[in-house]
């Protein structure tokens, strides 16, 4: 489970905030747009509906208008004709006018437009009270002549009649031929008040709620119904089917332009609901996400906890004052304190009292170099267990950084080094044992050589002794021994003593070498080192006739080393060199042992032979234990040599020597040992290599 660093989390947070704001903005804009569209559509729809209704009503009203006129026509046609008496006609006319207030006046005319009879409606003052009928019957006469010509009812154009009680009336006349039998005897005219006609329509329930008006072709209004008042918004006109009267019936709905407010309210309610829905959805999503994140966090925490509990490495967090803010179980187990005993304690209880000052100082240094990069190199120190036991630990520290990037403390991994120390100790002991074994093995490999070396003096001793006995036997037992034999017997006896001594020395040198000495570093002169091992080297060299050349500077440099071990290295290397030259003619068999100071801190030893060099195959393996090219070797020599030299901090390597033509003419093994600090100031800082002043040559 990856743990997200705080900085990254913050980044994600701001980014999500911005995107969320953007989301909300977009949502709002979309919502407003949708609602506006909705309102606009609703508005438009309602307008269209109302307009359509007005149109439909207009059509109906126009029909009704025509029907009313038709019905009235029938009534007028039903009036008594010429053959009836004038009173009868007047009575009937009077009834008709009473029933139809829109008809203002009925007239009977002769063919020459002379008015025979005229009846005015009683519901209003007589039509022609303000002006003379004769002044206003041009249109009537025109209509009558058209009716006469057409033999059908004809309407006149409307004309204005001033009136006393009102501002005046727009009047339209209907002219019908009056027949007597088949003969036209005159005309009947009816004067319609246009306004009255419209009122009549309204009272009949035609187009309720509409203001009705009649408009002339040119748009000027002729008459207006009085029953309703239109709002002037929704209007519709229809041409009225009245022959000769070009008029339009207009309907004007009383309903005004639809109000926006109710639509807006609806829209807002809808919008809020939608917003609420969206918010709920977002919240639900957020909650789900949060639950998920919380689950992940819990999992990460559990993971971290398990990790902290399972590691054997002690973990410890400290703040900048050095107070412990956190420890894991491994750390507690390591130091033996409970977490409660550790948290917030200053100084920590696991600091050994004797080191307080030093640790305090270290803390100060650490604080001083605060913006320190986390280092992979730990440092070793000593902690104390609760029971007072001290133990070494390795601490690796890295800075603790909070979400804002500032350091708040240190996180340390603490490793208990006790087991490692034990392993190191064990390994050291094994190394020592191995080296002792190798030393014994060296001697074992030298066994035949040693036995030879011992056999020589022993053989000589035996021979001298037997010879002497023989000499003595030849003379009479107890008798005098001839004078000339005495010196010889003396010489022989002296030789016996010498040879016994020699055998003793051989045994001692081996014993010195094998003896398990204290492993201690001491300062020892290179010359002393070489001298002590030289008898054994010579022992080996003598048989093969190898000459040994020792080159040591004077004064001999001094090294810090474990003497016994370095002697072993020298012996091994020289022995290898001598064996490498076994096949060489004795004249070429020269082994050079050289020791010189190459650098201020290092002394370089080299063992150079003139054998056939080291084959590549051998070179690859020769430093591995139990690799050997000899039948009687154990193969421990070079590997142990390298171990020993490396334990001293030096290095062991070799090169094949080549002559001018590149032919291998020998091998040089070199190793370095640390130089002892010089007792005096370093003599002539080495601009010229010191001449080898001591040159010991052994044949």
């Amino acid at each position, binding site marked *: 489970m990856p743990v997200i660093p705080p900085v990254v989390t913050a980044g994600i947070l701001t980014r999500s905030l911005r995107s969320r704001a953007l989301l909300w903005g977009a949502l709002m804009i979309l919502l407003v747009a949708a609602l506006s569209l909705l309102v606009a559509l609703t508005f438009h729809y309602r307008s269209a509906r109302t307009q359509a209704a007005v149109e439909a009503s207009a059509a109906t009203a126009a029909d009704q208008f025509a029907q009313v006129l038709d019905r009235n026509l029938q009534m007028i046609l039903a009036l008594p004709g010429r053959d009836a008496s004038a009173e009868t006609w007047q009575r009937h006319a009077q009834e008709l006018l009473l029933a139809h207030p829109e008809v203002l006046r009925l007239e009977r005319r002769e063919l020459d437009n002379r008015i025979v009879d005229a009846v005015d409606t009683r519901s209003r003052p007589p039509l022609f009270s303000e002006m003379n009928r004769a002044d206003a019957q041009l249109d009537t006469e025109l209509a009558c002549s058209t009716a006469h010509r057409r033999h059908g009812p004809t309407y006149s154009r409307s004309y204005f009649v001033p009136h006393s009680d009102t501002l005046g009336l727009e009047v339209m006349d209907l002219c019908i031929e009056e027949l007597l039998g088949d003969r036209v005897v005159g005309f009947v005219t009816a004067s319609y008040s246009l306004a009255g006609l419209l009122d009549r329509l309204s009272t009949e329930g035609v187009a309720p709620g509409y203001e009705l008006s009649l408009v002339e072709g040119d748009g000027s209004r002729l008459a207006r119904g009085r029953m309703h008042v239109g709002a002037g918004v929704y209007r519709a006109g229809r041409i009225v089917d009245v022959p000769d009267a070009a008029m339009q019936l207009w309907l004007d709905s009383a309903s005004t332009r639809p109000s926006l407010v109710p639509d807006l309210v609806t829209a807002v309610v809808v919008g809020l609901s939608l917003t609420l829905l969206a918010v709920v959805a977002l919240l639900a999503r957020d909650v789900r996400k949060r639950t998920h994140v919380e689950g992940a966090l819990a999992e990460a925490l559990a993971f971290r906890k398990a990790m902290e509990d399972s590691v054997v490495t002690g973990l410890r967090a400290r703040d900048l004052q050095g107070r412990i803010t956190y420890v894991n179980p491994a750390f507690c187990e390591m130091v033996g304190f409970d977490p409660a005993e550790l948290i917030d304690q200053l100084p920590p209880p696991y600091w050994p009292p004797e080191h307080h000052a030093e640790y305090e100082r270290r803390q100060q240094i650490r604080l001083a170099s605060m913006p320190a990069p986390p280092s992979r190199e730990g440092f070793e120190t000593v902690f104390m267990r609760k029971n007072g036991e001290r133990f070494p630990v390795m601490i690796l520290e890295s800075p603790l950084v909070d979400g804002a990037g500032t350091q708040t403390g240190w996180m340390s991994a603490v490793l208990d080094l006790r087991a490692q120390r034990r392993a190191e100790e064990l390994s050291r002991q094994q190394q020592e044992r191995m080296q002792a074994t190798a030393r014994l093995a060296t001697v074992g490999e030298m066994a035949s050589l040693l036995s030879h070396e011992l056999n020589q003096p022993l053989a000589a001793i035996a021979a001298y002794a*037997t010879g002497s006995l023989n000499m003595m036997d030849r003379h009479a037992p107890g008798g005098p021994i001839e004078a000339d034999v005495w010196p010889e017997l003396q010489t022989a006896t002296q030789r016996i003593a010498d040879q016994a001594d020699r055998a003793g020395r051989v045994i001692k040198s081996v014993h010195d070498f094998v003896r398990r000495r204290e492993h201690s570093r001491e300062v020892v002169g290179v010359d002393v080192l070489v001298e002590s091992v030289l008898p054994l080297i010579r022992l080996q060299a003598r048989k093969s006739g190898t000459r040994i050349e020792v080159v040591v500077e004077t004064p001999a440099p001094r090294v810090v080393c474990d003497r016994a071990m370095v002697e072993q290295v020298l012996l091994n290397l020289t022995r290898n060199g001598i064996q490498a030259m076994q096949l060489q003619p004795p004249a070429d068999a020269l082994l050079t042992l050289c020791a010189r100071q190459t650098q201020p801190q290092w002394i370089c030893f080299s063992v150079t032979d003139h054998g056939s060099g080291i084959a590549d195959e051998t070179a690859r393996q020769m430093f591995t234990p139990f690799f050997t090219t000899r039948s009687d070797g154990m193969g421990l020599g070079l590997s142990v040599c390298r171990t020993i030299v490396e334990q001293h901090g030096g290095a062991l390597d070799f090169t094949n020597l080549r002559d001018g033509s590149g032919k291998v003419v020998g091998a040089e093994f070199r190793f370095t040992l640390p130089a002892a600090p010089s007792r005096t100031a370093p003599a002539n800082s080495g601009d010229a290599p010191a001449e080898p002043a001591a040159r010991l040559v052994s044949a």
Partner: protein
Amino acid sequence: MDPTNPNPDLGLPIVYLVDDEDVVRDAVAWLLRSRRLLSEGYASAEAFEAMVLDRQADAGERWPNGPSCLLLDLRMGGMSGLALFKRLSERRLTEAMPVIFLTGHGDVPTAVEAVKRGAFDFVEKPFSNNALVDRIEEALRVSAQALHDQRLRTARQRRLDELTDREHEVMRQVARGLPNKLIANSLDISVRTVELHRSRVFDKLAVKSAAELAHLLHDMGTDPRPLARESPPVE
């Protein structure tokens, strides 16, 4: 009579001692002197070989002219004892001069190998000394015997060489036991001539009968040489 010198006419026996250890040479010389034996010491195989070559140049094939034996250290710087032994046996010197190896502790298998190749014996150092001298005396006796046989053979060979070709042919046939008559026929000479040759051959080789002649030829290790002589066979 000195047991080491059964044939006084062969000269004094001598023990050659090759060892690179001065003190060992000195000690062994002392021991030998205590048993009245002469010895000569050489510090290396090379030195001894040089001496041998030198003396052979002086004395020809006849060297060694006295009974001798060689005490040879197996392991030495320079040429090893074994190498020297090989060279000596190539020169057929080891018959008249038996070689006793002195060995160190680890060289016994090498020494055994050397004995198989004709060395007289080997003695491990540190050796039991009078026993060593006893073996040396044994070797000297063997040497004296070998030298004696060698000289006898040389003398006979010389006499054989004195025969003429015709006598040689007759001798061969006689040694095969053919009667004179058959010999005369095969050689296309008269019986009388055969008899003459035969008596000369008997004279020259100092034999009395054909059987003795055959025995002698057998001892010499060579069958009567064919007429067409090839290069003289190596003895």
